[in-house]
């Protein structure tokens, strides 16, 4: 389990806009081991999806990426484009969050699969179709629908098709950006189970980007909490859920709904503007514990327990 699949250090992704750079990801470092599942949670607009896309290098033009990103020891930034293209979809796959518009309306499902498989492997069309049938079957889509066009499927089916397509090459690393958001809980459970199986059988690593803390608790080994482009806490799921260090994580956990919850807790204020984020600790304007130091000094990334990191000046007080 110890061999590192993905290593990010000081990763920064800035979208250059007229108002100035939007610091969507601002100095994120983490490691992923083989077969590990890392959950990334955070509010809408905190940079989760950008982080996922930056790993594959499918960011829009005029985006500045700095910091290092190593996949199986290879620096992704310095790889030639053709090499990077070969890795995309084969070694690292990405499941997008909006399945409705991710399939080309002019391609049948079969075309999509053949196209994807043949972009990476020199196989006959027949063989590619066989593989497509198998991948689709595992997602509960019958072979008879292979010749259908995307608009003939429901949203849930399209999402399952997208997932089947991402998995057809048996990637070593799968980035799932809210893969089950548009699905009902039964299908959601099935998909999570399939992902779990793949992880066991093929030692696939999984980055699961989600809003749903319940899924994280069930599926993930480790959890990273993201706020305004930065990781504020990272640790084993058990540690983070039982004894969250960062006030944002605490607030996030407090705002989940339980059977016995009478009133839902919410965090005051709005997520910060990423063009001009608050100085020092980015959470301080919304933090109930904020002191003077939080406004002036950036908190260090401290290991509070083995493997459990957080960035808060008062982290010790919450242990």
């Amino acid at each position, binding site marked *: 389990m110890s061999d590192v699949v993905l290593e990010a250090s000081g990763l920064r992704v800035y979208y250059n806009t007229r108002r100035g750079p939007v610091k969507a990801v601002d100095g994120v470092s983490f490691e992923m081991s083989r077969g590990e599942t890392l959950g990334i949670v955070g509010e809408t607009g905190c940079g989760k999806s950008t982080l996922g*896309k930056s790993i*594959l290098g*499918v960011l829009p033009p005029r985006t500045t990426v700095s910091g290092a990103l190593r996949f199986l020891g290879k620096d992704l930034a310095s790889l030639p484009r*053709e090499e990077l*293209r*070969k*890795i*995309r*979809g*084969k070694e690292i*796959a*990405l499941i*997008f969050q*909006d399945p409705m*518009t*991710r*399939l*080309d*309306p*002019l391609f049948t499902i079969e075309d999509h699969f053949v*196209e*994807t498989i043949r*972009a*990476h492997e020199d196989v006959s069309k027949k063989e590619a179709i066989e593989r497509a049938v198998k991948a689709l079957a595992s997602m509960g889509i019958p072979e008879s629908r292979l010749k259908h*066009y995307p*608009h*003939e499927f429901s949203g849930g089916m399209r999402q399952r098709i*997208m997932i089947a*397509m*991402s998995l057809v090459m048996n990637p070593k690393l799968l980035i799932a950006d809210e893969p089950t958001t548009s699905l009902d809980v039964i299908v959601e459970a099935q998909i999570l189970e399939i992902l779990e199986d793949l992880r066991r059988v093929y030692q696939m690593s999984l980055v699961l980007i989600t809003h749903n803390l319940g899924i994280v608790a069930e599926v993930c080994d480790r959890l990273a909490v993201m706020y305004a482009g930065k990781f504020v806490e990272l640790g084993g799921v058990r540690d983070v859920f039982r004894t969250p260090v960062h006030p944002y994580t605490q607030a996030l956990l407090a705002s989940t709904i339980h059977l016995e919850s009478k009133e839902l807790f919410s965090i005051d204020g709005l997520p910060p503007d990423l063009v001009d984020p608050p100085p020092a600790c980015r959470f301080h304007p919304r933090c109930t514990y904020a002191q003077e130091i939080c406004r002036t000094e950036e908190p260090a990334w401290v290991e509070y327990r083995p493997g459990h990191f957080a960035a808060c000046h008062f982290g010790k007080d919450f242990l």
Partner: protein
Amino acid sequence: MGTDPVGRDVFSRVLFGTATSLEIMAIGVFVALLVGFPVGLFSGYRGGRIDKLLVLVMDSLYAFPGLLLAGLIAVLIGKGVVNIGLAVTVIYVPLYFRSTRSLVLSVREELYVEAARALGASPRRIIWRYIASNVLVAIPVIFSLSAADAVLTAAGLSYLGLGVEAPTADWGLDLSAAASRISVGIWWSSFFPGLIIVLLTIGLSFLGEGLNDIINPVLRKERS
């Protein structure tokens, strides 16, 4: 249908004129498509300075009155069916360029293009397989409309004496020769060439509609 002022059979003139018209239209529209589509695709996908320059050139051409421009070019390169076809081409290149380019700009941002990139499709494949095919869907409509328009332009050119020369059978030419006789009650030698121009123009417009239904899978489904 009678005969025309110099005693030629109007019916056979109309029949042979069809060939002239269709040839000019085919050359005009196909060459325009062959030039305008790839250039628009490239310009839209690349963007930047080359794109700006191409847009400037094409817009200048577009702004020029079509018939006048075609007439000018016909005068420059000489008459004859092929030359008139090429003169007509110049009008429609900007049309194809503009529509292709604007479609590329929107298709380029479609999420399925990003998804294809994430699944490891090469840039060449993305341009041709994903972007070009999605842009091509819109072409039949433009194609048929411009073809209908090209028929009118060609007829207009010959009517003005800037198109093909007599004695080539041409509807525009026949119309202009017969127009002065309507007042004395000889209506048939101008009516039938005019009628056939209308029929062909309407037919081409319908063709575009039909093609659109066949090519677009969403519409195809609704029909069946």
